[in-house]
């Protein structure tokens, strides 16, 4: 609790950089969109939880799949993306001492494009013209405006990504021979991966638009599915890469330590960027039209992501133990107690990191042939991504808010707000543990995902899932309470908290560290390696899907 009292009065340790006020405005705009979206998306999540358990019926004219489509799109694409951009741009501004004016312009254009895109896509969902869920698998065909909205959304993200690349190049030119600050390096990793991930879905959407407009009659179902997962799975790993930037660089400062060997951190970023995209294939393990050998290759390619993650686990425990021992922690686990558990800026990302242990283990289940067949399209998968995205990523994001938002709005994190944050973190953790835990169990006994309330005419197997579904609803209720507290905290810190200065907690490297290797900055090379890995993974199956394609499918609307 001592930490809690000290927060907000640490003016003396403010970094001399900080975020440029014009860039702070950009980041705060992104956070406003992000947390408004979280509120709507979270409410839709509770509605689903209650509907699924048969405790609530939607008003006439709305159905479960519409709500699910909006929940998925708003939280997985809008909330996380806007938070990521707001946070990464703040990191860049802090690292580069402000963004370039033309880059700022590109970012504002990006915001406008994204907002228009989201409004178009969500409007189509509300009108019942796009109940196609997050995956929008053809031959389900939504209204053309839904896909046009998605195109604008991607263009908005590209506008920001190119801005980041330009700013990075500019800084490198101005600072020859100097390695970029580590947070800027992370930001490059995030946007490079984002750009290449979105290529898959962009090609897919450009196949879909002429098809829904009737210019071409049929579409290749397998190719569109594969292109979707090229993007769809990589997206969640982008959020994970964003979270690791806080784990590696922010958390050590908060616990009073220093960050791990920068060479390893950079290597982890590069590995996550180049290895990630083929991971999408494990979503297609039980698909027809992909041979068993190709699927086996993809088990390997998906699992390779575990290597940088295990390196992260090692580095984080090393840093935390060292900091805890410095504070006088003795014995095998004494250091653990010395960590600042009462400081929300630490507590939230720490629980997020711990959640990545079961989350990662669940991911290994999902990527392996036979185990995937047991849990594919069951509630297990929903439980899995509520642990990984919903805790490991989102709780890290929430923890970031408690220092970044007051820093940007030139206000303080008060001890009271810190306490609210700690309570919020525990409500969130308990809510997710209950909900995701019961989802995993329900999935193991066969409860299918993405299915509205049903007992399959009272079949006893389906009735046995009901108790788990009541538990989902309980967890979802706690989570909505958590969302409301978090949204309150964010807007309070943005507009009402006492004026003041808040530290931008960036950790320093340990003393005696070797020089940062400059070869890590060769992003052109990493892009080529990424493309080579993608080619290894995709050329054979996609060529096979095109050459041996069946006659295509016409657009179909089944809702």
């Amino acid at each position, binding site marked *: 609790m001592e930490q809690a009292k000290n927060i907000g009065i640490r003016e003396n340790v403010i970094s001399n950089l900080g975020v440029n006020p014009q860039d702070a405005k950009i980041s705060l705009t992104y956070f406003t969109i992000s947390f408004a979206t979280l509120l709507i998306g979270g409410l839709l999540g509770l509605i689903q939880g209650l509907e699924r358990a048969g405790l609530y019926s939607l008003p006439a004219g709305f*159905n*479960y*799949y519409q709500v699910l489509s909006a929940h998925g799109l708003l939280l997985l694409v809008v909330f996380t993306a806007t938070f990521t951009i707001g946070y990464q741009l703040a990191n860049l501004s802090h690292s580069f001492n402000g963004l370039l004016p033309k880059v700022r312009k590109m970012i504002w254009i990006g915001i406008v494009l994204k907002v228009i895109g989201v409004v178009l896509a969500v409007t189509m969902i509300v009108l019942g013209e796009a109940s196609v*869920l997050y995956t929008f*698998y053809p*031959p*389900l065909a939504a209204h053309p405006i839904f896909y046009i909205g998605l195109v604008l959304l991607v263009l908005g993200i590209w506008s920001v990504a190119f801005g980041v690349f330009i700013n990075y190049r500019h800084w490198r030119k101005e600072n020859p021979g100097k390695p970029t600050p580590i947070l800027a390096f992370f930001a490059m990793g995030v946007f490079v991966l984002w750009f290449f991930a979105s290529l898959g879905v962009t090609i897919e959407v450009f196949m879909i638009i002429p098809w829904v407009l009737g210019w071409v009659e049929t579409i290749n*179902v*397998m190719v569109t*599915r594969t292109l979707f997962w090229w993007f769809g799975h990589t997206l969640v790993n982008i959020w994970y890469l964003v979270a690791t930037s806080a784990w590696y660089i922010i958390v050590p400062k908060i616990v009073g330590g220093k960050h791990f060997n920068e060479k*390893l951190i950079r290597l982890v970023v590069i590995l996550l960027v180049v290895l990630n995209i083929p991971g999408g294939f494990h979503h297609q*393990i*039980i*698909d*027809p*039209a*992909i*041979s*068993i050998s190709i*699927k*086996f290759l993809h*088990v*390997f390619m998906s*699992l*390779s992501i*575990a*290597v940088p993650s*295990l*390196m992260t686990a*090692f580095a984080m425990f090393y840093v935390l133990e060292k900091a805890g021992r410095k504070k006088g922690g003795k014995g095998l686990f004494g250091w653990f107690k010395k960590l600042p558990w009462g400081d929300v800026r630490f507590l939230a990302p720490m629980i997020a990191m711990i959640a990545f242990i079961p989350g990662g283990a669940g991911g*290994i289940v999902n990527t*392996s*042939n*036979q185990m995937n*067949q*047991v849990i*594919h*399209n*069951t509630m297990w998968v929903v439980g899995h991504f509520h642990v990984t995205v919903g805790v490991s990523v989102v709780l890290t994001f929430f923890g970031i808010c408690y220092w970044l938002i007051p820093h940007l709005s030139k206000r303080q994190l008060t001890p009271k707000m810190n306490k609210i944050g700690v309570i919020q973190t525990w409500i969130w953790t308990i809510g997710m543990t209950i909900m995701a835990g019961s989802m995993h169990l329900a999935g193991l*006994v*066969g409860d*299918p995902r*993405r*299915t*509205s*309330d*049903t007992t*399959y*005419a009272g*079949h006893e*197997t389906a009735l046995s899932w009901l108790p788990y579904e009541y538990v989902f609803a309980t967890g979802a209720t706690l989570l909505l309470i958590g969302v409301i507290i978090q949204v309150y905290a964010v807007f309070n810190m943005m507009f009402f908290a006492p004026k003041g200065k808040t530290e931008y907690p960036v950790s320093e490297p340990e003393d005696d560290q070797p020089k940062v290797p400059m070869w890590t900055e060769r992003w052109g090379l990493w892009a080529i390696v990424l493309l080579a890995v993608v080619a290894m993974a995709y050329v054979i199956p996609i060529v096979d899907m095109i050459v*041996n*394609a*069946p*006659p*295509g*499918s016409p657009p*179909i609307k*089944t*809702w």
Partner: protein
Amino acid sequence: MSKLEEIWMTVSVGVLVIFMVIVGYQTYALGMGPPSHKETIDPQKVEQTAPFDNPGLIDLGDNKYELVMTLEAFAFNPGNVEVPVGAEVEFTMTSKDVSHGVQIPGTNVNAMVLPGHIQKITHTFDEPGEYLILCNEYCGTGHQAMFTTITVK
């Protein structure tokens, strides 16, 4: 420090290699690979294409059966099939419209059934009972109503 790190990395990579060996052994030596059938069909002419022009249970003798099934929003055809205890059933399936998934909770039967593609999966029903067959890929407003049963007696 760097020694510990090396041990950790060696163990991590070692575990993954062992893992791959096990998955590979199951896939190739035990024939437990995931459903990956590669035949195709015109999704708009399913009803005119054999064997889906005449879906149903085919007795292959020796307590082996082939169940030729079409999936469409929101039904399995045929539904409510009966087989004897110990029957080995090969499901041969395709979709007449959008993507579907077939799952029999309590068994390892779980496969995607996509338009234009024929999917196959085999299961031996050793225990008697009424098994639920459900669609586990969102296929439209009536998705939750898309199910049937297979009775084993």
